[in-house]
């Protein structure tokens, strides 16, 4: 009799269930922490330079460079692009172009064509009219910033007294 009870006790100890309480404790701690810090929307950013008081070196007149500086003006939905020789000295006539903010890929394509030609892109100066929406400005700035050939994108602002 006692031998049968011993056998039953041995079987019971072997059939012990998995203890899930420590696992549950871990989940109860980790899940709220990760929920609070979870990023369901991926954030990005457009990095820009601001104009400095004395910017760049003065380009000497007798030094000819094939580098091009651009001025990009956004007025409502119109993007107006003007090209200048390095240092914003002389305007390059055949680089004057106009685009629509709803098709920024045309601006990107134009920049690629210029950079593949005889001239190299240097810096770009961006200016937007007051009625421009922030979203449209970011759209154009993203195209400029993303273009590998442009060395820098400077945000031109109104003078502050």
């Amino acid at each position, binding site marked *: 009799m006692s031998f049968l009870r011993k056998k039953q006790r041995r079987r019971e100890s072997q059939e012990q269930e998995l203890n*899930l309480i420590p*696992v*549950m404790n871990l*989940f109860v701690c*980790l*899940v709220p922490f*990760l*929920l*609070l*810090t*979870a*990023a*369901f*929307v*991926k*954030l*990005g*950013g*457009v*990095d*820009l*330079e*601001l*104009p*400095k008081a004395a910017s760049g070196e003065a380009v000497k007149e007798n030094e000819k460079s094939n580098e091009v500086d651009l001025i990009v003006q956004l007025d409502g939905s119109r993007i107006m692009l003007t090209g200048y020789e390095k240092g914003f000295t002389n305007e390059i006539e055949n680089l004057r172009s106009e685009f629509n903010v709803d098709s920024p890929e045309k601006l990107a394509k134009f920049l690629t064509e210029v950079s593949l030609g005889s001239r190299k892109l240097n810096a770009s100066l961006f200016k*937007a*009219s*007051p*009625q*421009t*929406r*922030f*979203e*449209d*400005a*970011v*759209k154009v*700035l*993203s195209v400029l*910033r*993303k273009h590998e050939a442009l060395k820098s994108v400077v*945000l031109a*602002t*109104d*003078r*502050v*007294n």
Partner: protein
Amino acid sequence: MKKKRRQRPKTSPLMLTPMVDMLTVILIFLIVHYSPETAKIKKSADIKLPMSELSLKKVPRIQIEINDQHIQFNGLALDGLNPSDAHSASWKPLSEALARGSVKKDEPILIMADKNTSFVYVDRTVGHLAANGFSEVYFLTEQDKKAKEGN
């Protein structure tokens, strides 16, 4: 005398296995999406960010949120500063906040604004930052799904 057998109350065991399965899936999902950098951004919930394909590699310490009524500096509204006022005297609170925060001139500043905000307010804010000697700003955006890896 017959002894009354005590009947054990019938209790069904708590089935923890499905709950653990569910929590495991949720945990793996959250670990994959864990991003401590974006948790540092103090942005208002009602702001809808513009889209961009560019990524944000590092979150700047100084964060300025702009709308047409007020400007927030690291989550705190700057009293007395109305972005629609172009007079430089009314922008003193921004200069004072930058001075209090011991912000270095070469430190980048994160600018956040709703996509429908008029650019004039952003322009004025950035203008005052440039006048205070700051040289680098980041515009916070929502990353486009078409963004390439490593951008």
